[in-house]
């Protein structure tokens, strides 16, 4: 799926559903108190369990009209050193989705969490960890004029989903979001510059563990 819609637009694609099988809640579509209870009692614990057991930094799930996103601090170390290897950074990683990289879900690439989590489970604990710098870029969600967030500067730490700026489309700002955790690298487009859809705007250098084999 080289051209799967999504890219860097957080929250536009329906979130993937990595733990709905675990939560076994089926197709309940109520959105009242029952739904909240369901989310609190079943989805959140299932999500925590899944996240603890995996090497992912973040999981997101939609259930009964609610969207739950859970993050863990990767630098604190996770039980088990398994992890899906991140491929090349930048555009490829952000748009190809499915299991290519751990550590970000964000709603950008539908299905990446489920594929990533099963991959992580499969690699098992105890494998030797290795650090690698992963380069990615926040991409333009639309055609328009780019404005970076106030004070955005090289060296700042960002988390997946953080808003790094906007692209103005006929007066309507659309958010540019960080595709993963990391540090702001170079700005690839100047303030006020005309940008196209999918254009790389802000370089994000992330540290991630990768594993051999």
């Amino acid at each position: 799926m080289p051209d799967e819609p999504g890219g860097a637009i957080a929250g536009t694609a329906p979130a993937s559903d990595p733990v709905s099988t675990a939560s076994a809640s089926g197709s309940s579509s109520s959105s009242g108190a029952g739904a909240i209870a369901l989310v609190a009692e079943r989805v959140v614990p299932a999500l925590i369990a899944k996240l603890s057991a995996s090497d992912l930094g973040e999981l997101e799930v939609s259930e009964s009209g609610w969207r739950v996103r859970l993050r863990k601090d990767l630098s604190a170390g996770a039980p088990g050193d398994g992890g899906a290897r991140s491929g090349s950074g930048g555009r490829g990683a952000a748009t190809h989705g499915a299991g290519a990289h751990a550590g970000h879900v964000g709603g950008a690439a539908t299905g990446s969490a489920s594929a990533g989590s099963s991959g992580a489970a499969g690699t098992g604990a105890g494998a030797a960890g290795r650090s690698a710098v992963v380069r990615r870029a926040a991409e333009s969600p639309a055609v328009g004029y780019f404005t970076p967030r106030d004070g955005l500067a090289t060296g700042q730490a960002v988390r997946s989903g953080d808003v790094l700026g906007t692209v103005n489309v006929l007066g309507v700002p659309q958010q540019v979001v960080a595709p993963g955790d990391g540090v702001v690298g170079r700005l690839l487009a100047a303030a006020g510059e005309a940008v196209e859809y999918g254009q790389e705007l802000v370089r994000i250098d992330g540290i991630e563990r990768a594993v051999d084999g």
Partner: protein
Amino acid sequence: MFGRVLIANRGEIAVRILRACRTLGITSVVAYSEADRDTLAVQLADEAICVGPAESARSYLSASSILSAAIVTGCEAIHPGYGFLSEDDSFAEMTRAHGLTFIGPPPEVLERFASKAGTRELLARHGLPTIPGSEGMLRDDDHALAEAERIGYPVLIKPSAGGGGRGMRMVRSPRELQQAITICRSEARAAFGDDSLYLEKWLEENRHVEVQVIVDRYGAGVHVGERDCSVQRRHQKIVEEAPSPAIDEATRSALAVSAVRAVVAAGYENLGTLEFLVDTQGRYYFIEINCRIQVEHPITEMLSGIDLVVEQIRIAAGQPLGYTQADIQLRGHAIEFRINAEDVRNDFRPQAGVVERYLPPGGPGVRMDSHLYSGYEVPPYYDSLLGKLVVWGPDRQVAIARGRVALEELVLEGLTTNVEFHRALLGNEAFLEGAFTTNLIDRVGSAAFLAAAG
């Protein structure tokens, strides 16, 4: 004239518009979706800008993305091609509100001709015959019987609301009418909550004939003859030709002259196509107008020598027509074969994949409008049109002979196409006699149609 134009379309028509822009010395910017990064128009363009993902709703159909792309690239006008935003009056209005020009009819003209029923009434007032039908809605059985008698059987019972064939029945006698009308009323009530019905004349063996018109901002208009698009499958045109072999000279002239007179009087502007149904007696009935460039426009260009896309751009830029009907000479006969990526032996299922080898045919009177090249990957997201093979000859026989040669010569490997269908058509007696009707393929069935031609 414009200095820069945004081409907001894809495939062969994007290449066609690009060529017209070049002819006029206009810089062109091609708007493309992520799935079309490798397409020919992007490669040939002066500039190209990605407007969104493969999904057309977020790229080619996204008015704000297209308009924003035109603005950020400094374009003065947008050419929408056909399909997508080409007849969207609110997009045209939005374009104008941002100080750009929509290449097509102005928004208020698009709006005036947006409703099919409204357009039929409007053009009927300006002298175009429309399909005979009942005066208003049917009050009761007696009224229905009287109206059917007046129109002449067979008639089609149609519900006022909705569509999709529900509440619709064709009847051949008063007896059938009385039986069907009760069923139609209850179907229409159940489906649309409205059981009002009306009658329309049913044309059994009809031909689809359309007239090309060009009208400038100052009320000068010409027609560029007609095109016959009777070779259809499930209402999709497959082969078009001009002139129509189904009508005599007197009808041809009356049809074209009345069409252009009516649209000029109704305040139309820019390029337009008026579609008619022609019955076996050569009577014609207006059905609808297309306010854009048509897929099949090249056959008219082959006959007239007029570049219709250039005319469209010139008129949108406010230039006067600059010639009259007497200056338009139509010569010879042209046929267009739509080359589609579809499997004719498998219910015409659309195909996607890599074009491994592509070699267009050539020779006198042969034109291939296509965005293909060897190695191009046809994406699965859009329509299956790969190109249009157009042949011209001094008469129909020569055009058909050149068509046969060109279809043999065309090399298109790696994808299943409908070329086999076209070869079969050129062996079909009804087509060779010029007697093809719009229902022929569906009535015979495409498998039987292909088998009969060997």
